[in-house]
């Protein structure tokens, strides 16, 4: 029964996403996709080269972030945890800004790689720290690290050249505007391995719902699983950051939406979190394109605007914070 909700919402969101944007397409025009000969080349290009890859990117990133959020929340025992809080996004942003400002003649192709390098260095640092402290302390470290990295980025932006900074700022606020098939292949290539690993880790995270002593007495307090989960969370968010910049709130919101419908066991929430993450990201990107067309709002911005009140509402109406 509960799964029907996804089955109903997903096609609607897909249809809405393909139709809306700077040029609105009718359902008839979309159906023509199946008869390529009768379709205007511009329309088919619009759909196949722009909207379809963008839609797939949004869904893949949403699913990845939803799963990362669930895993982090389960392992840290903190329902408020979000991968964005660990400082990974900020780490990626800092390296990108640093590179753009210190090497003005940089090839734009290298930007995502720089982001990935930054994200993975922060992950490495977090992994090293995770061997030495409790998951809860790690979140606090992440918050401090985020502030520090954001401050450093801000400092660099102050001294940087104005024209470059505009590009960086759009990327920083999280945008799918530049998503193409290359991004789709990059994402799906990684996610083919990362998502099954994440689902498996969620299955091992069920006892994490219990108090620390009970968890330990079940033989479920395995530090290597904690570290592996963290590494996976970081890689998933680094991947998302690289393609679309800093997208917040999905990691926080998607697992909470899934909890409204499903059992709180991480093993039962893995798939719903991915689905609701994909839906959220798709919805936010579609809204961002449709609301003020032809002006496009970055998906990260839309998510922050709809995500924050949604989260507050969840907090007030549900006992999400109770364990």
């Amino acid at each position, binding site marked *: 029964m509960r799964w029907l909700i996804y089955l109903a919402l997903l096609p609607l969101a897909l249809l809405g996403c393909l139709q809306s944007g700077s040029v609105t397409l009718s359902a008839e025009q979309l159906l023509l996709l199946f008869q390529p000969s009768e379709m205007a080349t511009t329309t088919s290009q619009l759909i196949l080269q722009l909207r379809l890859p963008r839609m797939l990117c949004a869904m893949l990133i949403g699913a990845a972030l939803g799963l990362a959020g669930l895993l982090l929340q389960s392992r840290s025992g903190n329902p408020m945890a979000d991968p964005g809080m660990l400082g990974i996004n900020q780490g990626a942003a800092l390296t990108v800004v640093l590179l753009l400002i210190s090497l003005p003649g940089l090839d734009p192709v290298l930007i995502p790689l720089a982001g990935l390098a930054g994200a993975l260095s922060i992950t490495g640092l977090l992994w090293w720290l995770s061997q030495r402290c409790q998951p809860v302390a790690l979140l606090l470290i992440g918050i401090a690290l985020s502030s520090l990295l954001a401050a450093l980025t801000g400092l660099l932006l102050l001294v940087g050249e104005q024209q470059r900074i505009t590009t960086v700022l759009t990327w920083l606020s999280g945008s799918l505007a530049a998503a193409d098939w290359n991004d789709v292949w990059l994402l799906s290539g990684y996610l083919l391995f990362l998502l099954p690993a994440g689902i498996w880790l969620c299955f091992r995270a*069920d006892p994490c719902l219990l108090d620390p002593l009970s968890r330990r007495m079940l033989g479920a307090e395995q530090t290597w699983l904690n570290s592996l989960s963290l590494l996976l969370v970081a890689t998933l968010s680094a991947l998302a950051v690289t393609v679309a910049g800093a997208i917040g709130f999905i990691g926080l919101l998607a697992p909470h939406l899934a909890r409204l419908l499903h059992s709180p066991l991480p093993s039962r929430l893995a798939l719903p979190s991915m689905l609701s993450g994909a839906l959220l990201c798709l919805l936010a990107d579609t809204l961002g394109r449709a609301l003020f067309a032809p002006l496009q709002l970055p998906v990260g911005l839309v998510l922050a605007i709809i995500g924050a009140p949604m989260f507050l509402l969840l907090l007030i109406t549900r006992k999400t914070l109770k364990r």
Partner: protein
Amino acid sequence: MNTRFQEHSPLNALSAQNLTVSYKGTTVLDQLSLTLNAGEICVLLGANGCGKSTLLKTLAGVLTPKSGSVLLQNQALDQYSARQRARQLAFLPQNPAAPDSLTVRELILLGRYPFRHPLLPAGKQDKAIVEEVLAQLELGSMADKPLGTLSGGQRQRAWLGMTLAQQSEILMLDEPTSFLDLAHQYDLMQLIRQQNRQQGKTVIMVLHDLNQAFEFADRLIFLRDGQIIADGSPQQTASSPLIHTVFGLQTLVMQHPEQNHPVCLPLSR
């Protein structure tokens, strides 16, 4: 064959030798030795801060002793992996916690975690054991209810179910009846006794209610200042001088008028 088996079958389920445990520089347990016999219900008694909870946690392997050792089935406890230990020894903490939306059945199934294959979901056997536990604890009708909708007594029974699903030889409970009313305390103790008598489980628990301990324990261990000062059956140990030494309270100890165990009535400080 049979005698060989007898020789190797451990009559002592768990033993501790010269345990010294300190917490923040204070010695909580001091050179304590203890052997827990298989199949008995053993209750740890003592005033607040006497070290009974610490002893239970050290026997469970949660706390590491400064010196001395704990042997589980004649093998050092720290040689066991956490998973292996969880198959031999189940532990119900004083304040267990789980999300309110978790159902009774899901909670009990978590008790199967130490037996689960790392790659596979819960198997038929795990599910059958959960159903068996649900039936034993008469929780069948509320199996799919979220914990948040249960009464305190039902919730504690569900938690007991989780530890029973571990099918361990040893069951440890830290003040299992603390938050229950009198009738539910009695029900829970009956269930624990039933597990001991019918499934042969070795039970060791901390209790605060002396009369409950006198009624349900095979063996009482009185602790004071980190040492055992009395150890024996309720009939052997129940005496007002001992209770005065342990709790600093004057009591009247007498035989239960209708049942075969002592009772204790407080008189004054």
